[in-house]
């Protein structure tokens, strides 16, 4: 698939609200607000992850009969035990890093996450996970509404989006999130070097600090410009971080490395958004190896490096990662060795405070089973994704999830904390 990131944005980005202070390194605002040290790292798997090949029900005969070309042989599955209903489960063989986290009791796998009448459209489904409202794919996002609950003035780096476009989840009417797709290029460029460049940057900052009385539109642009200049140094602090473990050399791992840098350097960001794409595996997805194997390798190796690094820094108890995708995929493989858009998926959480284990029950993939839908083509959801959000908001971020999610999803939420 070549779906541009732009397509995932619907009705605009938030306006940027900036603090008046100009903190140079550790946010003075953040300090003054006595910010809790907990951070949430959200990992979005773009394109619809094939959950059935991430977490494999390797004793289900229908899994093999319906996926003759792409099923993972039972002998290669990384076994992790059985869920509450007795389904033996294992991870994709390229998720060795996540197996380590699971064995440490710090990886929670929430099976069959989704919502009723699951959208099979990438854009709508992604937006629904963003709004946390299956009835509406427009408007603000759940993390944006979380940011709106934070005291004002909001630190410009309260959240940190590592992609170029603001995802729906981070959209808010009141809380701007800087887009820092590449911390290395989130720098002040000059046509000159040395003193001239330094003087130029000082002039740019002075110009952007002009209140522009009587011209609110100019003042607004100045605000974004000032916000950029004022966050440059803190972003540079994150960029200059030397990790304790090697990270793989791909965009996903490098984004996680930057996030680790921001956490270790105490930048003060509470929410990070990270993406890795390519999960729209309509054709030739492979089994243990091949395209999907590479996706799993990228995911597992990157998260393992990040988890290890943060743990080595003694910050794992302050850090939770969640992983989601906009939908799972069709149970039966299609005619081109891939899978089409399906329904329920798998969500993951990992971190030092996560109560690891298997949550929910695997689907039984033989046609006619009530755990399936769409003429037994897709996996039916069991756990509403919003109950996972609710747990994160209530138990991790320490805010009331009910107003943020416009409903009470606490009952029956998987007890991942």
């Amino acid at each position: 698939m070549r779906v541009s990131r732009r397509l995932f944005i619907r009705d605009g980005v938030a306006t940027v609200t900036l603090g008046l202070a100009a903190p140079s390194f550790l946010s003075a605002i953040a300090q003054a607000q006595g910010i809790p040290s907990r951070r949430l790292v959200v990992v979005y798997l773009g394109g619809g992850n094939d959950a059935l090949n991430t977490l494999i029900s390797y004793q289900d005969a229908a899994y093999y009969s319906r996926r003759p070309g792409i099923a993972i042989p039972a002998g290669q599955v990384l076994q992790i035990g059985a869920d509450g209903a007795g389904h033996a489960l294992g991870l994709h063989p390229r998720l060795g890093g996540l197996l380590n986290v699971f064995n440490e009791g710090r990886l929670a796998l929430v099976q069959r996450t989704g919502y009723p009448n699951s959208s099979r459209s990438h854009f709508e489904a992604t937006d629904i996970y963003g709004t946390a409202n299956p009835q509406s794919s427009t408007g603000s996002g759940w993390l944006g509404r979380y940011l709106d609950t934070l005291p004002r003035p909001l630190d410009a780096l309260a959240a940190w989006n590592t992609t170029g476009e603001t995802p729906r989840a981070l959209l808010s009417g009141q809380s701007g999130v800087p887009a820092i797709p590449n911390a290395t290029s989130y720098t002040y460029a000059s046509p000159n070097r040395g003193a001239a460049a330094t003087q130029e940057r000082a002039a740019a900052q002075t110009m952007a600090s002009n209140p522009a009385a009587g011209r609110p539109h100019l003042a607004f642009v100045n605000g974004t410009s000032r916000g950029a200049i004022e966050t440059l140094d803190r972003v540079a602090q994150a960029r200059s971080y030397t990790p304790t473990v090697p990270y793989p050399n791909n965009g996903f791992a490098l984004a996680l490395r930057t996030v680790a840098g921001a956490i270790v350097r105490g930048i003060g960001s509470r929410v990070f958004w990270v993406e890795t794409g390519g999960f729209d595996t309509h054709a030739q997805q492979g089994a243990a190896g091949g395209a999907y194997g590479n996706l799993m390798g990228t995911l597992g190796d990157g998260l393992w490096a990040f988890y290890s690094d943060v743990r080595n820094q003694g910050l794992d108890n302050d850090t939770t990662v969640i992983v989601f995708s906009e939908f799972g995929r069709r149970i039966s493989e299609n005619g081109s060795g891939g899978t089409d858009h399906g329904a329920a998926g798998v969500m993951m959480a990992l971190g030092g405070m996560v109560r690891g284990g298997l949550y929910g029950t695997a689907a039984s993939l033989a046609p006619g089973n009530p755990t399936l839908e769409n003429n037994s083509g897709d996996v039916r959801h069991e756990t509403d994704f919003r109950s996972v959000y609710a747990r994160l908001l209530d138990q991790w971020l320490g805010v009331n999830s009910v107003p943020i999610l416009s409903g009470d999803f606490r009952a029956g939420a998987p007890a991942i904390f």
Partner: protein
Amino acid sequence: MAQLNPEIDHLLRRAGFGVSSVDADIFRDMSPSEAVSYVVDYEGRPDDVDARIGRPDHAQVASKDLFAPDIDIDDARQRWMFRMIHSRRPLQEKMALFWHNHFATAYSKLVTDSGTVQAAKMLAHKPGALRGPQGQLELFRKYALGNFRDLLVQVAQDPAMLVWLDGQSNTKARPQENFGREVMELFTVGVGNHTEADVYAAARVFTGWNLRKSADYRQDEYGDVNAYQEFVYNADGHEASAKTFTFPIYTNGSRTIPARSESEGMQDGVDLITALAIHPETARRLARKFWNFFVSEVHQPDPGFVESTAAVYLQNRTEIRPVVRHILTSPWFNNPSMRHARYSWPVEFVARAIREVGWQGFSLDTVRVPLASMGQLLFEPPNVGGWPLGADWFSTGTMLARTNFAATLAASQKQHLAAALESDSQTPQALLAAMLDRLTPAPLDAAPQQALMAYLAAAGTWTGDGEQLNTRTAGLARLLVGSSEYQLV
């Protein structure tokens, strides 16, 4: 602060992409009204811009292999940027950009359906370059100031649009509402002026409007580039019963498109489009969009402007040229408080910066990544609603992308800029004044002016030549093009 005079500078920022050194010669002796005529009545001047691609005294293009703007989307993006920078008909390109946003169609979805080559061709194929219909952009250029109703009919039959809004799956058995909905909600009357029932009826109207593939068509990049998809009316796919709307379809007030034989059923769509095009709310909605595009995003549309512009549109049977002429000669447009009252779109910003700073040896393939970072990759609007405009263009990341583009451009034009400004370099004040005249940003308050003077003073004893001039001229261009004042047009 003026390149020519404030009225013409304003006109060329809005109806074009700023004032290049070439324009300065063309417009120097014109009155503002002559300038409006020159900009609007461009048909007399040749549409020869593409023939100048590759000339050393123009901006450059670069490609992985052969430059192929009819079948490679990145090359098509470069060709369009080249046109914005060098066309003798800047308003044609400006309006094409307006229609691209109005009928926002994204390459990435076309790729999923048709592959990279055919997707690029559907959007950017210049008529005659290859076999098959013109690309969507060429439609927008052809009808830039043409008849809106005719443009709507063409858009409804445009292969890119048929793929984009799923016309291919709009069948008698399962009418597909995507186009039927957007043709009312986004392309014409707007929200609140139609009902869900109208949407269902419109979907039925357009059943049978579909695509036909040429014999040698393949859906991957290995196919013949001369293969194509083209519009076809499939009579036996058309749902032939009567369709009733909540608004008049015919001038006699009738709201019902009569049942027709399948073979004549294509007229349903033409009747609906005509009705939508002459709907008074379409006239007002276009007038409001033109207000934001030409007059101001800071001030609410003036009711007098909306009504007079809508009236010109309807009196001229949906012709756009008289509408735009009306706007550009109107008191609203020419009110000095409307100057710099719009937020430039990223492509406007980039094209204008290149035109005003310089393009010598500057390769347009280098603007793709910065434009994506600024939030506007051509042929990749976020959805059918177009880009989020106005203040929504600006975030810390996008602003940084703008300022860093200013740095890249200034660095590439260092020698050229210094040479061009050498005669104004006797004092720092003279240099700053010349640069402000060249770039026409929104007026600078005292504080930013002092910051710029301090930047020049930091160079030490002013000599106004050599390395000092190179450095400070480029730095000044970077600071001004990257300033908030320059983002407003």
